[in-house]
């Protein structure tokens, strides 16, 4: 694994599946991760990444990502795929995460030296509720394993880590609970 890594969960846990990124973060917090991995709640404003990043060579962002797939589907996007999403969807709601991340890259060119990856979780319900939908809740363990894989760490069961994603847009189905 890299010397150090930053994992930022984004989302609002009071708005159903919008809180998927925070749920993954909380699950990661319950594990005994090395001190070289910093876990941060980024709230709902991805532009704070500029202040959260402290030179870590690997940055993993976790967020709800609505792409029209089955709820709970995981998508891993690398920097290029994120940029494509930001450029092709300039009118997505407010400054969504891809646009924010691109903005941060413009203002903080040093961040370009880091590997930045987004783990997205397809939401089913984004509405006022504390709870994740069953499909998204079931996808959280796989999302955690995906993050651990990106970090090069073994998963909870002590298995070999999944191979880090190298493709720009790799999807994997969520596992049942």
């Amino acid at each position, binding site marked *: 694994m890299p010397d150090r890594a930053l994992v930022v969960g*984004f*989302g*609002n*846990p*009071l*708005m159903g*599946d*919008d809180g998927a990124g925070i749920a993954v973060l909380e699950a990661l917090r319950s594990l005994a991760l090395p001190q070289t991995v910093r876990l941060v*709640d*980024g*709230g*709902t*404003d991805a*532009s*704070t990444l*500029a*202040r959260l990043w402290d030179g870590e060579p690997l940055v993993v962002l976790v*967020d*709800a*990502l*609505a*792409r029209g797939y089955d709820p709970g589907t995981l998508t891993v996007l690398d920097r290029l795929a994120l940029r494509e*999403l*930001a*450029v*092709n*969807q*300039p*009118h*997505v*709601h*407010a*400054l*969504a*995460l*891809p*646009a924010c991340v*691109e*903005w*941060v890259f*413009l*203002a903080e060119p040093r961040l370009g030296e880091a590997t930045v990856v*987004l783990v*997205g979780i397809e*939401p089913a319900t*984004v509405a*006022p509720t504390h709870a994740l939908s069953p499909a998204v809740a079931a996808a959280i363990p796989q999302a955690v394993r995906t993050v651990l894989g990106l970090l090069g760490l073994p998963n909870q069961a002590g298995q070999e880590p999944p191979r880090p994603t190298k493709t720009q847009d790799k999807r994997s189905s969520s596992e049942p609970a």
Partner: protein
Amino acid sequence: MSGRTVVIPHLGRVEGHGGIFVRIEGNRVTQVEMDIFEGSRYYEALLKGKHFQEVQGIITRICAICSASHTVTALQALEEALGVKVSERVHDLRGLLLLGATIESHALHVFALALPDFLGYESVLAMASQYREEVVQALRLKQLGNKIQDLIGGRAVHPVNTLVGGFGKLPRHRELEALAAELEQALPVLDRFVDLAASIPLPQVKPGPTVYVALRPYVEAFRFRGVSLCTSRGEEYPLSAYREVIREFTVEHSHAKHAALEEGTTYMVGSLARLKLWGHYLTGRAKAAFQRLLPDPKDDNPLLNNWAQLVELVHSVERALEICHELLGQPEEPRDLVDYQVRAGRGIGAIEVPRGTLFHEYELDEAGRVVAANVITPTAQNLANLERDLRAGAEAVLVAGNGLSDKELKLRLEMVARAYDPCISCSVHLVRS
């Protein structure tokens, strides 16, 4: 009569979600409706039954951009309910926190969400092709706002250091000195943004006379802490009367409540309203920017709210600098927290936050549990007036340009809606593609 319908199902570059529906018959706009999600009722329900110390953790989740604003307003209400009097230093520090929130919110809105419209770009990223330095500086300014909130609130979003009774940890002098140096550096950057704004002609939207509402500052100066509720018609009401002055009502087409003054008049809150009522209190660079960008006191063009936010951005940096110097003149102490007894009570908090006047009201039982909560956001107050201005914006375009395409009409409508900087938000932010 043949007619057309313009629907903007999803309003881009607005904090949150919003949809606009406009029906046009000939050159006449017959129907304007805006539907947004505005979550204050949900959060009120969530707060009921919670201990008052849990309120902040929940209420700040309403919005990343507005978390400091909700925090300070909630604390003001809870302290009134509990009979807690905080020190002037705590007021100053909360003021600094709000200035940080204002810098962050206005920098995001003016530079990243509104400027692209005026300069003819689809987004802030597209704008970077020709205005790269401005786009970079815009984020640095936003980060400066985050940094202030980080220092005072304990972290950039969802502050944790702000408590009923004061602050658990006060900033050190060396931290305030470093912040003051950064604030100084921001001033010439803002001057350049004022120059840029002054060079841009605003499209004319003339909705007719607008009633503006804002809090009277607690001193004769441009401040966000207020003592009474004032209108541009000359009325003044005690804060305790806010429920009678502001009448909330539901409409069939919107998930959000709308608001109007007692007799049904719609009104505007926010930066433009504050400048209309209290702009004469501005000093320094902010005063100069105000005179340059908003020279006509009778101009009710809602698009001016963008420039009003820029003026407030300049003010916020200048005022934050003043507070830093005031705090540096006081002895360094670890905390400023008063003791208090939990009791039953009711309290109202009202603060001028980036998008307008924010109200929180709580009723607590003897154990400090929330019996009732009421939150009225600036966005909810602005919605009815925004619909009125959307109609004026559409009609202005129809009169000016025969055969204007739906695309051009939609852009104008979106600009009017964005000028209000509606924060619906915050609650939902997921990435869509």
